């Protein structure tokens, strides 16, 4: 016997008079209630409305140390937590481009899967208002060989948090 008999279920639901007696009021309700919602002016948010960016005060210092730790641990997800909605990503030997934070996470993961960080440290950083920069260097291992890399990140303040707007590895 099958585990679930569709016909049995359908027969259970089958019925005649009930349907005929109540269907009209229910149909009316289905038609009228949404119309009321609509007329009441319940508006959805349109993606095409002009956007307005409001500046908010800075909270905390740029998370340079956290990003440095994440780079050392090759933790792309931890770095991606700080990515802006669109982030400029330029990795060694790859064409740099703007990526969405979602895509940038995978691009960075792919990079770390072939470039294993041996050492890394941000050597200089600077913050001015809502923007911050940090540069540093280290070594990565690619197919058993170590090479030097330079990293530059650019952060900007978005609301109450700092986000990475550029992540460059040369």
């Amino acid at each position, binding site marked *: 016997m099958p585990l679930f008999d569709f016909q049995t279920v*359908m027969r259970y639901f089958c019925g005649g008079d009930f349907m005929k007696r109540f269907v009209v009021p229910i149909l009316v309700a289905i038609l009228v209630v949404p119309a009321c919602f*609509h007329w009441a002016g319940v508006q959805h948010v349109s993606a095409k409305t002009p956007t307005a960016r409001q500046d908010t005060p800075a909270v905390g210092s740029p998370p340079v140390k956290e990003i440095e730790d994440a780079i050392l641990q090759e933790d792309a997800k931890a770095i991606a937590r700080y990515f802006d909605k669109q982030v400029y990503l330029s990795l060694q030997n790859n064409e740099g481009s703007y990526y969405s934070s979602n895509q940038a996470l995978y691009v960075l993961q792919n990079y770390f899967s072939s470039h294993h960080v041996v050492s890394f440290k941000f050597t200089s950083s600077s913050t001015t208002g809502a923007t911050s920069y940090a540069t540093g260097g280290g070594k990565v291992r690619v*197919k058993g060989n170590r090479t030097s890399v330079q990293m530059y990140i650019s952060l900007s303040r978005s609301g109450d948090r700092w986000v990475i707007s550029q992540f460059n590895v040369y």
Partner: protein
Amino acid sequence: MIAASLSGEYFYNRYLLSDWRDVDAQSRLSLTNEVQARFAAYQERTTEATKAVAYSSVLASSLTSGTDASIVAIFDELAIRNRMNLSFELYDSTERLLAWSGTHSSVPDSVYFSSSVATLIIPGPILSYFVTVVPVRVDSVQYYVVGKRLFDVNYPISNRFISNQAFATTFTSRFPFDLDYYFSSGAARDSSERIRIPLAGLSCDTLGYVYAQAPVLAEYQDTAHEFFGKIIGTAIVLAFALILFLALSVQRARGSHVTRMVVWTLGIWALRYIMVWRDFPECLFSSTLFDASYFASPFGFGLAKSIADLNLSALFLLANVCVIAVPWIRRASSREALQLRTPAAVLVVVALSSILFVCFRGFLAALASAVHDSSLPYGDPTFVLPSFELGAMLLGLLEIALALVILGAAIVMTLRTIFLSLFGVNRPAASWISTIAVLSALSVLFGALSPNPLLSQDERFIFVLLLAGLSILFDRIVTRNGHLQFVPASLATVIVAICFLIPVMDNNVHELDRIHAELLSSEILRPSDTWVKIVMQRALDELSNGDALAALSTTDRQGIEKLAFTQWAKSILSKEGSNCAILIFDQSGTVLSNFQIGISPYKANEPFQDISPTRRYIDVEDQKGNGDRRFMGYTPIFGTDGVLIGGVWVELATGRQTILRDETANLLKNYTHEHFEAHYRRLSISEYLQGKLVSTTDESIPLDHRLPAGVQSRSGTMQWWEESIDGVSYETLYLRDQTRGADNTWIALRMNALGFRWHVFSYLRYILFYALIVIGLSTVILVYQLSRRRVYFANFRSKLLTAFMIVSLLPIGVLAYYNRQYVLERADESVQKRLSDQTALVLSSIQREFEVNAPFTLSQVTNYQCTSVADRIDCDFIIYNDKYLQASSKPEIFTAELLDERLSAEAFVNMYVRKKSFYSEHRSIGSFPYIVGYRPIATESGAIIGVVSVPTLFRQNEIDEELTQRNVLLFGAYALALLLSLAVGTFFANQISSPILRLKDATKRLAEGDWNVRLRSGRKDELGDLEHSFDDMATRLRESQEQMLAAQREAAWKEMAKQVAHEIKNPLTPIKLSIQHLRRAFSDNVKDFGNVLGQVSATILQQIETLSRIASEFSNFARMPERKLAYSDVHEILDEARHLFDQHRAVSFTTDYRAAKSIILVDREELRRAFINILRNAIQAMKEKGNITIRTDSDVDVIDINITDSGPGIPPEVRDRLFEPNFSTKTDGMGLGLSIVKKTVDDLGGTIAIDSAPGTGTTVTMRLLLSLEHE
């Protein structure tokens, strides 16, 4: 396999660890042999090709003659043999260059001119060449033919035009691993990290050394781990797929639809996640489709982490939806009302509607992700057919759209079946209208309760209407032929899916434009000082690092000259892409190397006048009050002994409008800003102060343009406006500039609004792509069916449509091809005309410039002078003195070795030999094509002293844009013509084929006995005559059939009367004899007359009874009583008939009533008699002992009744006559029983059949029409 892989990896690792020394030695040896063997073959081919040129008869005869024609012949000969990326040069005995081909120029070296064939490698900081020199004597004069091939490229820039991969034919590029070279003496020997491989020349001398990476144990282990991991991953995926296949096979045989659906869904998604877990099939091969830099989305924990993954997931989704939804569509298409109790009906309607809108929202989210989480050029107007990656992406999205549409149609049709139960099957329109109305209303409710920016109310309405349209189409297709027709249903689904897909895609691409503009705005408004200072510090660190020190410590003149460029290319300056200048000095302040891009340095002379040569220095300077700033920095370079050996001077220009200025050729641009300029809608920046326009990069904006009044009054620092300026529509992003502390400064980023033409072009090319996909798939299916001899497409209409398509598409295709060629030629002519004008302008400008300032001497023209002229006339150019570069307004292109410093051979021949006043040619750098125009510089006496050339290199964007606009126009017109011809072709194919198809159907119905079929055509043509003739024929056939039937009926009645008379006579004789016997007994006064009377009367009564039965059977056969039709349950009638035979104890009955519907309109008594007849026959056949099985089944509108006995069966010769009247195998009865049954079934519009064979029992199958109205 998994165990074997794990064991294999374990033992391989053990082997590596124990025998690494042997493995290492063997690897080094094989690598050395491979490199040397390849180099020997490379050297031999080059030498042979050069010898072929040197010893050619054309060369010898031309050198002998020495005329202009012979010079042209020599150039042509060298050009013809310019294969294998080889360049040739011909020198005379004085080492003077006579002729050449190709682009690989370098300063000739005395080592070229040896007395025997020789090979050598000319190393360079960027490009290295392999050279073969072949001496040849012609008429006792010594000449040298030099063959050159690019040997190694170490290009420091990598962009979409220029990269090491673009020079794909080097010796190095033949190897799948990196190689380094060393061409001087003292090359280091083998080490643990590198292998040194000597390269032997023709005379066994060492030309240089190759360094390859030595084998690394960790790499071997990693490779082994990766290899065995692939096997394990593949094994896991295949094993699960096999298990799933077996499980589904078992389930298919035993389970219900719902359980099959659940098992299928869980199974395939489990398989998909196992594939994601094991990176399958990515682990098996590499492809750009797996590259996250094209597309990657976090959806579903890896289900869409690349284009290939998205496609696979979309295919799984489509398969899943098909398994679930297609049976629902088939079921709903049967117009079978789904009767539910009211609460259940409401619940089902709301639940299904919610699923529908949630899925639609998911679909929109997927499309948004496909655009926003990808770098694919959706909006690139230069493509008509997409690239491989974009095509794969579009295919995946279509699969998702198809899944949505199929699921949506199933839901809509299911909802409609609920409303059918309310309005009845005879009112389909009411049920459709109700379905659409309720779905529309629920869409509003859904939007109100769960608002989402991805899904507007309009989109929801359109979604509902499109799905309803498709469902109605399905309904019509299905009801026409009784089952779902694959081809039209699939085509309709694809068309609706495309209707969903393309507009949404277009919207998302448009939105992405705005996001890009907003990103650019953040670059513009970014406070730059801090960042530029960091860049400057970093650049000075990088420029004074070990490479510079090493270069300055050598005597490599060429290396030092290129040092500024190579250091720039490697530094952060090239990555940032700012206009900059780099000067490298020695300790005395003499410039050793310089590279400038977009600006001229202040410190070209006397660098140490204001600064200390031993101290780092950084300063900034405002320029002309326009916001642009110049950052300057200097850093000393000290030798290893701490003594100053030189210094680096860097200047960096910044300014918001420099972001969009075309001062740097695309070839040298970095990615950051190239990203914006590759953008298909050109952006311009305008600056407003106090509401007035103060500067703009768009010359079409009038200088008196003012900031729109509404901009300042709105809040926020960033606003999008749609505006029209001088009749041109723009989408403009207004930004409040707060970086300088002035609130009344606004920056406007403008891009042209997308016009109707653009949307048409965009839509049409997507449609074209999908049409090609459909045609491709159809062709594959057609070929498959042809190979299986099952051609579904080959009906008359399809053939006619195909013929129309071919007839209309062929001329359009040919016309489009030639028109496109014509347009390209016209575009080429237009560019050439422009180049002709520009070269003339340049020529007159430089002549005027130098005649004003000094006597015209070409050798004194400098790059700086060229730049100033170019700025004035807005046209970059190059000046050649004789055949070599003299000066250019863009010297960085030559410094970067992107252009040859030698005039092209073709230009030389056309200028100097053929004396043309203008010449143009197509050339390319890497994968960057461009056109160059040449014009000779002549003295007053007419002697040509040089050549001026203008390449489109610096204006290629504008040319591409023009070409794109022409493409848009051309493609739009032809695509529209194509669609129109498709529509017209389809219309005419239908018009022509429909009467023939109707005729075919009518003939078929006529052959099946439908004598009333008529076409009643209104056509006035030959086909109309044919239809009228058919109607006449059908009428005459019906009349003759009626006459024949009447004759048959009469004959049957006669036969029946004869039989009845015969049957009646049989009892009459005993009656007559009995009465005669009675009369005789009475007259004889027989004693026991009473007994005689009793016997005789009994006999008479028995015979009368027989007569009565005969009369009764005859009456039944003739249907004399009037029928009383009523809705009756077949199962009840069967039970009544069965219970009449309960007294037969030795006969058992088995009932299996499977029919879900069993109500039919029938004379209950008549049907009961039919069943009784069948059951009685069965019992008699079984000798009143055995089993009778009664089974029922229902399909869409019929019920099947099967009555099977366990009797001896019926021989075939008897079975064929069972329904004939008066045929019987029994001793009693008239043989009318089964005839009556057949008449009853026929009159009910049903069918009856008997299946039997001796020894197997007999099955009587009746098929009766159900009464759906009563349901």
